[in-house]
């Protein structure tokens, strides 16, 4: 199942790719959760949340990771951040495997590996002022020893994310959703990271505010040379912000390619179905657009289908798809898809 196992790099778009230094490489990542079999004696089962996922992110680029709920995109992000222990596989960040480094080293690595969560309200301490929230990681990591220096840095961070100096004295509940997400971004920036995992950073925000935050993330990337793993379910937002895009379904990457390639020439039937399902805010376009609604629902990752996990819903599946697991193959240059018929 490993894509091009003999090639120098095991990840699509990895070190073998022509341009760019690889900052993060995920190799054969597996995360299983066991469920049931506990106190109430339900049947024990294994949720294959992430099932052999490999990809690489080059320094300075944005990789979009899209899929529907339960596809494993968030778990993949959490495994990269070491918020979950991967069951198997490697997470190589700046050349070091985070799954094997000791806790002290992990703490120093974390400075350069940050996260922005979907819901800024539940990820900010309600009893701390914005100033305290931002100063804490700077103090914990010993970046700026003096309190005065930290206050200066907090002011600079607030400015950087489009907030005012007086916001330092406010509490999270006194801010709007968009302002809270700006604080979440400032907190990630406080420790000078190189890679930020953005887990649905705009999906809890109002439409008119989403664009503000996306523009901010893009500006920060340009100014600070940041690298993003952008996890989201909104395909239009992902196309806007990403350089390359990976599509996940039931714990596996089914397609990964350059943004233009993926949206203009999607190869996997699931990617095509996803794109067809996105409503377009234009009645004329919608009236002429053939809607092919994908039937069925996402099967349980407790008991994924045999062969290609997408075959029960796939409009073009053939007999082979039931029995054979399609490997992620490079079908066009830098365009990988896991479909026997692609």
């Amino acid at each position: 199942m490993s894509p091009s196992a003999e090639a120098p790099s095991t990840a699509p778009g990895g070190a073998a790719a022509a341009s760019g230094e690889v900052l993060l490489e995920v190799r054969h990542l597996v995360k299983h959760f066991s469920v049931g079999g506990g106190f109430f004696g339900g049947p024990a089962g294994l949720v294959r949340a992430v099932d052999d996922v490999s990809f690489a992110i080059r320094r300075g680029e944005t990789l979009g990771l899209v899929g529907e709920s339960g596809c494993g995109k968030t778990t993949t992000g959490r495994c990269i951040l070491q918020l979950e222990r991967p069951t198997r596989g490697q997470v190589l960040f700046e050349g070091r495997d985070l799954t094997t480094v000791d806790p002290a080293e992990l703490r120093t690595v974390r400075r350069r590996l940050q996260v922005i969560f979907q819901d800024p309200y539940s990820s900010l301490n309600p009893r701390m002022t914005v100033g305290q929230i931002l100063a804490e990681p700077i103090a914990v990591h010993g970046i700026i020893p003096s309190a005065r220096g930290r206050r200066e840095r907090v002011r600079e961070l607030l400015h950087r994310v489009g907030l005012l100096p007086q916001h330092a004295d406010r509490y999270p509940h006194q801010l709007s959703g968009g302002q809270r997400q700006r604080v979440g971004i400032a907190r990630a920036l406080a420790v000078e990271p190189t890679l930020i995992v953005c887990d649905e950073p705009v999906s809890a925000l109002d439409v008119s505010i989403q664009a503000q935050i996306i523009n901010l993330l893009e500006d920060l990337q340009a100014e600070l040379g940041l690298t993003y793993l952008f996890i989201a379910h909104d395909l239009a937002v992902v196309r806007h912000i990403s350089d390359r895009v990976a599509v996940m379904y039931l714990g596996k990457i089914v397609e990964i390619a350059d943004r233009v390639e993926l949206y203009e020439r999607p190869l996997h039937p699931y990617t095509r179905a996803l794109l067809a399902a996105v409503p377009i805010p234009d009645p004329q376009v919608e009236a002429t657009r053939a809607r092919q609604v994908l039937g069925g629902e996402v099967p349980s990752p407790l008991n994924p289908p045999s062969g290609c996990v997408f075959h029960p819903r796939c409009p073009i599946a053939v007999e082979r798809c039931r029995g054979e697991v399609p490997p992620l193959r490079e079908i066009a240059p830098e365009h990988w898809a896991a479909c026997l018929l692609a």
Partner: protein
Amino acid sequence: MATLLDVRNLQTHFLTGGGVVRAVDGVSWDVQEGETVALVGESGCGKSVTALSIMRLVAPPAGRIAGGQVLFKGRDLLTLSEEEMRHVRGREIGMVFQEPMTSLNPVLTIGRQLTEGLEIHLGMSPADARQRAEELLGLVGIPDPGRRLRQYPHQFSGGMRQRMMIAMALACNPSLVLADEPTTALDVTIQAQILELMKDLSRRLGVAMLIITHNLGVVARYADRVNVMYAGRIIERGTAHDIYHAPRHPYTLGLLRSVPRLDEPRRARLAPIEGQPPDLTRLPPGCAFAPRCAFRVERCAHEAPSLGPIGAAGHVSACWEAARLEREHEPVR
């Protein structure tokens, strides 16, 4: 076509620590028989409170309907007794909410939740109600209805639960279904299934629909007419074509421009609406959108514009500069 629902100058207020919030501040709109109408806006704009007010489900003592009329088939729902109102809910007006799990009873079987309404509202015998429940599940595309009726909500997936909610909403042959963010909690492929199902059923059964949503994409395909709300008021109304192709309010235009679209070339930069959503306890004296508006003029700061006709018949906008918007506005890319 006859007018089914006619909401006139509806006002719903909430008493909060910060003062009186005019969540719905004098809105008027209507739904014709068999028509699909959308109420679009962002969080806090009053769209959900409008729906709750129609059903008289605003929780006292904090919330109260302060004025207006809700004429349903000519009767003002705001003057009915609680007993009469119970008859309207569920029987004459069906409801579909965003979170089916919180609106279904977790300890009753799917079958019981469907048959209860049929027995109470339509006086059906348990056997007849059961038969009708099976039909309803089939109607909303739930396979193997006989077995499904014996199951509990937690045994249904999110999409199946929403189908179940639609079945419940349609159970007593209502003439109107209120759907508050019916697909927001669902994945995009399931969302497409549910919207197609709702539109199909509305056509086949002739049911009028009021869809409340924040997602402009969702209603483009399904709504006949669209009302855009901001800070408790309707700021623009028109046919779906008017709203999407000839928006005449800066807020509507801003909403359309701020979202990236898959059918267009990628833009280098998104065009957000600047500023923050309004604080309803401290609204500016003039137009509530003025602080964020790119078209604002002196007058907007102290005089609130009311809805006035612009362009095509039935197209109305509450903006002093609507005419300028028409001249300067290029078609939304």
